[in-house]
């Protein structure tokens, strides 16, 4: 039923093909959402095009997995969560409204909600574990001097970083991940987290500061 389509058809009108981007921007018609490269794919998905679903998954799976892995610090959990994210996308794509932001923001918000749910579910379990469980081992392995450069080369660095990120509060963690590891714009992060841009920057500052102190305690940072 066309009436149940939530995405406004006008959002998919390829305005740049009818006028040059410069003139469109000049006339104020070129909205932010009409530039979203995912919109055409999303529309095809909604018509039942399986190839479009595949394209959508392939375009975003790396990023979503990376966010889940950075947030949880566990490969198996990250895989399960990524799978769950895409299952929710399959189920709820029709609730995505093109006028309310880009598909990427919508997808990251969905991922974020899932991650926070996951964090809350496992918080009780984690509270029983020592906060710095891996610290003695890692400190032992690290020399007295900074090994930043050699560590960064491989898997160990990723593990160090993942475990250090786990010690940040989820609010600071998600902000730092989205900005410094996924390279999202501040306004996009603000849209994902539904907080003002100033709060995003404040969280990133605090997150970076705390992370540096954790890494320094572990002698990963000088």
């Amino acid at each position: 039923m066309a009436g149940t389509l939530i995405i406004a058809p006008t959002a998919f009108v390829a305005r740049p093909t009818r006028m040059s981007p410069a003139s469109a921007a000049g006339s104020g018609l070129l909205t932010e959402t009409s530039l979203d490269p995912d919109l055409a794919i999303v529309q095809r998905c909604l018509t039942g095009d399986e190839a479009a679903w595949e394209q959508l998954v392939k375009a975003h799976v790396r990023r979503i997995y990376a966010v889940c892995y950075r947030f949880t610090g566990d490969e198996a959990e990250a895989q399960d969560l990524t799978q769950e994210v895409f299952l929710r996308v399959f189920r709820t794509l029709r609730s995505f409204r093109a006028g309310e932001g880009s598909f990427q923001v919508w997808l990251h918000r969905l991922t974020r909600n899932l991650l926070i749910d996951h964090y809350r579910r496992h918080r009780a379990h984690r509270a029983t574990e020592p906060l710095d469980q891996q610290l003695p081992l890692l400190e032992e392995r690290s020399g007295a001097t900074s090994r930043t450069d050699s560590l960064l080369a491989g898997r160990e660095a990723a593990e160090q970083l993942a475990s250090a990120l786990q010690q940040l509060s989820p609010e600071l963690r998600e902000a730092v991940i989205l900005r410094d590891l996924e390279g999202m714009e501040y306004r996009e992060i603000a849209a994902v987290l539904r907080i003002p841009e100033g709060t995003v920057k404040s969280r990133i500052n605090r997150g970076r500061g705390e992370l540096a102190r954790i890494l320094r305690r572990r002698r990963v940072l000088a």
Partner: protein
Amino acid sequence: MTCAELEALLCDYVEGALALPQRSLVESHLRQCPSCSALAADARAAFEFLRRAPAVEPPPELLTRILFQIPERVQSPSGLRHGLRAWLRPLLQPRFAMGMAMTILSFSMLGRFAGLGPRQLSPAELHPARVWQALDDTAHRAWERARKFYLSLRVVYEIQSQLREWSQQIQEAALSGTGTSPEPSLPAEPESGKRPNPGETEP
């Protein structure tokens, strides 16, 4: 510049995205404020560390797992029609369709050999009693035909005649020499492997 104002600019400053006039303002504040200076140093160190962090790649099987679930999990966009299509999807798989076609072909061939040819049906023939009668009739005919076919087989005929011969011999032996020969003269090992029941030899 206050510490709160500095915090608003710190992200851009650490990332090197601040224009010159603001950058000099920030730097002059950092020279005067030890706590802001410490925060800026930490933020820059973490930023540099994170910038060089290796990329995370999902395992290839994850993509396969997710893609595998697309057709099953996609919600029906248009209710009944799509639901029916989703429900029928397993039946429309090439392997299943081919198997189904071969089954129908086999049954039709069997039916043809059994004399169940296609013909026009009248409404009266669809009455349950008539259907049952026809089925009963067909079953009996089939049974009789199968029985006749079995009995007319050469090997069956030979076994039966052999058995008859043996029973005749046993009867003759029992009648002629009761007491003289306790054991009736049995023929050599039967070819068919079927032996007469030893109980029959006992009087």
